[in-house]
């Protein structure tokens, strides 16, 4: 039987939402919060929205609660526990939704959306294996962390309406240069809409030789500042107009 747990997520400085999670469902991270805040700043009216890689459903739900989603909210995830938790969480907050199980855009063949928010962020596979973020959650993103995200970026344009916008995070624990070039090949315009530097979590500090090797090989980017190693997330909005 699936063991559900509950956790709180800050919607804004005044309100938290309670979400259900389960083993195998991706838990929201700092990148998730950064992504929600960035999308919220960019969208000005309710849109048809796909939460791709929805995990517990937090991104779509937060945007719904901010009044930015035209009903129904569309969401999908490869993880069955993720899909199950999303359904529970969206129902709890009375968000009319269509949640599907499947890989990347597979569940949405032939559909188009005004906004796609992708919270599938790849990091170098060896880093994912020792990081605190992917416990029990698959991260088959290749040596430099680009394979999943590059596929998503390549496919995204065909799932967007004419004025559609695609939001995605790039994480410097992957080869961000390759991913940015892929985005430039597939979209006319790419705007960075948020950026955040982070300290390495303790779990990764224990694997500095691995990180330094991957950094030397160009698979990841680390920056030394304040006497510590930092990595970063950048959120991009891409569109073809």
């Amino acid at each position, binding site marked *: 039987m699936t063991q559900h747990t509950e956790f709180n997520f800050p919607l804004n400085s005044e309100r938290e939402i309670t979400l259900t999670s389960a083993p195998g469902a991706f838990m929201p991270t*700092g990148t998730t919060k950064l992504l929600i805040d960035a999308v919220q700043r960019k969208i000005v009216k309710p849109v048809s929205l796909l939460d791709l890689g929805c995990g517990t459903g937090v991104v779509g739900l937060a945007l719904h609660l901010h009044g930015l989603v035209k009903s129904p909210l569309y969401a999908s995830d490869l993880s069955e526990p993720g899909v199950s938790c999303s359904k529970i969480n969206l129902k709890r907050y009375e968000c009319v939704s269509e949640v599907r199980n499947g890989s990347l855009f597979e569940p949405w063949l032939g559909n188009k959306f005004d906004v796609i928010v992708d919270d599938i962020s790849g990091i170098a596979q060896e880093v994912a294996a020792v990081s605190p973020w992917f416990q029990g959650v698959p991260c088959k993103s290749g040596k430099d962390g680009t394979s999943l995200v590059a596929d998503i970026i390549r496919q995204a344009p065909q799932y967007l309406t004419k004025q559609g916008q695609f939001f995605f995070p790039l994480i410097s624990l992957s080869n961000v240069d390759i991913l940015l070039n892929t985005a430039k090949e597939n979209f006319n315009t790419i705007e960075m809409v948020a950026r955040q*530097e982070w*300290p390495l*979590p303790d779990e990764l500090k224990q694997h500095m030789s691995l990180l330094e090797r991957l950094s030397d090989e160009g698979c990841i980017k680390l920056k030394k500042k*304040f006497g510590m190693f930092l990595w970063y997330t950048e959120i991009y909005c891409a569109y073809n107009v």
Partner: protein
Amino acid sequence: MSKMTENDVLQILEHALEITSGSIGPDALAENVLNWDSMGHLSILVALDKMFEGKVAEISEIAEANSVQKIFAALRQYSLI
């Protein structure tokens, strides 16, 4: 830029941690201060670096400065306060 005081630094810390003004004293330890976790610490360092025009980024000791006194000491060592 006129030299900053310890009180100015305390205000920067409070602002970076998004906590009430006057809630951090000179003897405060990170573990006892709301929001002063690893992310909070980075927010402090980014705010100090901005205030001291990029000079804090080069202070390697400040990464481990887990109290107000240790932050003061690191800034004093580089004659920033």
